[in-house]
């Protein structure tokens, strides 16, 4: 039983075809994308599936998930708001911004709103220091930058998503 193969057989074949027979393990990155796309994280079952597809150990797959900050091994909100509060951003008020956003959502950094829509995380430099306060949003299908933010602008964005979810 390989859930990933059953679900994305064709797509996975295409990915695997890009790598030489002896170097299938290199396909671990694109396969992790595929796995994470489904519900925003890579489950242990996904890791087992990928390990089987590439004939490597599940531990190897888990190491890669652990190493890269944009792969996750736990379910979180539909949108992960990753606010940079490294020093340069902090100098432009990122800490206050983060506090304000968290207050509005009623969560602490690292937590998810009860409706499962938003997770707020504090992260290291995202290379947009001059446009702080800033954050990136990682959703199931991609990443977007939001720069020169205020709590107000962020709240608007976030509330939009939550309303969308509430109205189904």
């Amino acid at each position, binding site marked *: 039983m390989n859930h990933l193969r059953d679900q994305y057989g064709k797509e996975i074949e295409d990915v695997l075809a890009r790598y030489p027979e002896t170097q299938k393990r290199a396909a671990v990155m694109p396969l992790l994308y595929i796995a994470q796309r489904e519900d925003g994280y890579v489950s242990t079952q996904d*890791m087992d599936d990928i390990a089987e597809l590439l004939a*490597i*150990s599940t531990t190897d797959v888990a190491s890669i998930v652990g*190493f890269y900050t944009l792969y996750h091994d736990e379910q979180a909100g539909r949108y992960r708001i990753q606010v940079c509060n490294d020093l340069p951003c902090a100098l432009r008020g990122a800490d206050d911004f983060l506090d304000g956003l968290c207050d509005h959502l009623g969560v602490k950094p690292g937590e998810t709103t009860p409706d499962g829509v938003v997770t707020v995380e504090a992260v290291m430099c995202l290379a947009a220091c001059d446009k702080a306060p800033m954050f990136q949003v990682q959703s199931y299908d991609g990443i977007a930058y939001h720069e020169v933010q205020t709590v107000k602008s962020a709240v608007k964005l976030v509330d939009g998503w939550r309303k969308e979810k509430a109205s189904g």
Partner: protein
Amino acid sequence: MTEKIAVAVAENLINLTIDNREVSVPAGTLVVNAAKLAGIDIPVFCYHPKMEPVGMCRMCLVEIGRPAIDRASGKPLLNKDGSPQINFGPKLETGCTVPVSKGMVVRGYTEEVTEARKEVIEFLLTSHPLDCPICDKGGECPLQNLTMEHGPGQSRFIFDEKIDLAKNVPLGDLIFLDRERCIQCARCTRFQDEIVDDPVIGFSQRGRALEIITFSDPGFDSYWSGNTTDICPVGALTTTDFRFEARPWELQSHASICNHCSVGCNTTLNTRREAKSGGDEVIKRVMPRQNEQVNEIWICDKGRFAHHYTESPDRLTQPLIRKGDALEPATWDEALQLVGDKFKKSKGKFAALAGGRLTNEDFFNIQQVTAKLGGKALLDSQMAGGEMVAQVGVGQGTNLSDLRAGDVVLVIASDLEEEAPLHWLRIKQAAERGAQLIVANPRRTKLDQVAHRLIRYEYGQEAAVVHAMLDSFSPKRPDQPASVKQLLRDESVKAAAEDVQSATNLIVFYGSEGLDVAGSHTLASACANLLIATGHVGRSNNGLVAVWDKGNAQGAWDAGFATSVNLADDLAAAPNLYIVGADPVGDRPDLAETFEAAEFVVVQELFLTKTAQMADVVLPVLPYTEREGTYTNAERRVQRFYPAISPRPGARADFAIAAQIGLALGLELESKLASLAFEQLAARLPAYKDLTYGKLAETFEQWPIIGREDLYYGGTTYDNTQGLGVQPPSGAERGESPALSFEALTDPEKRKGLLAVPVTRLYDLGLTVTTSEILATHWEQPHIVLSPADAEKLGLELGAQATIKLNNMQSPVAARIDNRVPKGVVLVPRSVGLHIFGPAPIEVGA
């Protein structure tokens, strides 16, 4: 690949200066190793001499200077005094990643280097718990030692900023991880990946959050896990067996030899006197002992953890004599008297059956007794061919680590990692160094991953494969059966035959996968003929190796024992039986009748086995840990082990008991000193001529240097100070001409139903394994393995309970499904209580 330095290699030497000392080492040598060879210490953490350098910890920083060259002329620039001008780089370099070069100058004592070491230690300790007083590694810990030697003594980091991490993380049943102590050197993960190809532990996260993880099931599921605790330079990894059991400095060390399989790994038994054992010495742990020709610096987990049987409270300590239905305690005098009297009268109707864990001294004395009585000396084993190994086994000076490009290794009918883990490891390494590896087996095994050529045959065609190889380059024998002719057309067989013919050196390993004793004999003789026909006998790194089921099976053959092709008949024909270190009734219940009918049965044993329960006299023996002796491994290396703890009162050594029985028969056999018994043996057996205990105890300098004061370098594997053993000349080397006949082959019978074939598992349900509770989750329960097609036909799901009927016995088993198993075949593990002695028809029901 492991960087190997043959100290003796004189070609391509590079001269350099390390700490003002002139050093001359082979090109390619890394600076840390060059220093080590010269007796100079450059501290390391992540570097390990058996693994590729990674330069992760920075502990080995040194100043490295190179001769300045005049760009225009290409000539070295000289100082005013005529000495070469040396350019030192602006930064320190890692000695573990830099190979030596001509004229290099290395300085490991300057202020800058001292300062750097201090800082690296300070960094490594930023969040280290410094709980040495309760750490198992304390006392033999590289981090502790190097901190004392190079550390700053005080940290500038703020105590409250130390991060707390989990301290008792079971990575599996055998290994515990203390996350706080880990210094992230990756020795453990690299060992699992690079050396044993079992990457079941890995790093997750990065920076300070970096941690060791495992996703295998059961956790840290590898036959090699214990070795990581030896090379971990801190107390982050500890074994369940030894954790919180003793402090290293309280331990006594005793040289020993593992007898679980025929590799014969050198071990050190650590012992201590304990109040909880009434002041007696107990074995606290089994550690590897370096022998670069046998096990290098490793042992498998079976060797490390399956030792508890030797100290089991269930052991016998008193002779027993049958009185009616019961076995009743007796004195040694009574028992020996009775045995002597009975045996004396058994002339011509006598047989001895001995197990493969006995020592050479035991076999010799038992064989003498048996010969005197005109009986048969039988070895309790699933394999045959030892007389051929004695003739054409690997020659003197054989070292699997010497095999390289141009050499060929053929492994046939063996799942080598299960049957002889260290052989698997060393052949894998030979293949990685470039030796041509041919693996012939009906199903995929782990060794396939590194093989250059794979031969798939059907169970039953083992010998046919070898005959086909022979036929492809020598005159074909007309009487060959169809299977040989068919295999002759097989491309992989043809190519393998070519490999073998052009091999510089050739070693053939034959195992017991899918074979009974007769099949094993036929295969051995085919392999021996292949070696003889291609001239690969009678010299080092050439010859035949049997993957025996027990540690000293070869010693038994050398002493005149042979495996019986029909054990039931042989035992029935000799109603007086002398069973030593074997449990035939336990292994095959159908033999109970034979024992019922036997006239007089003596069992010499550690435990009251099924066979012992049926005996007339039971004589209690000492395990190898409580006595001295020698074993002969599959590579014909005779190795010596020493007593580790005092003998349990009441029991005696096997050779001594045999000698005492011999007394009644007028034999003068040594009953006190194993060394004298060995002298008698060496005087009688040509293969052991000139060997003495003294010679077996000799050692010579080995590389890498392991296990001395400098634990940081190679880990806690013990230095070999008590003997590397001796590989005596084989029959072929002694000039005996190995006259071997070809055994005529027949095609395997056409069958309708499923065929059961025996396979070997490392952790079976033998008494030596099941007495080590910590291995419990790894014990192989009764199971069968089927191909997906057969499973479907039978309506069996993975893990389903099934019932099998095999050799007249019905047993419940769990069904496993594996696409590596050929259709029509059912794998049945040996020694898990199922009735399998060779290929046999099997019925499987849901």
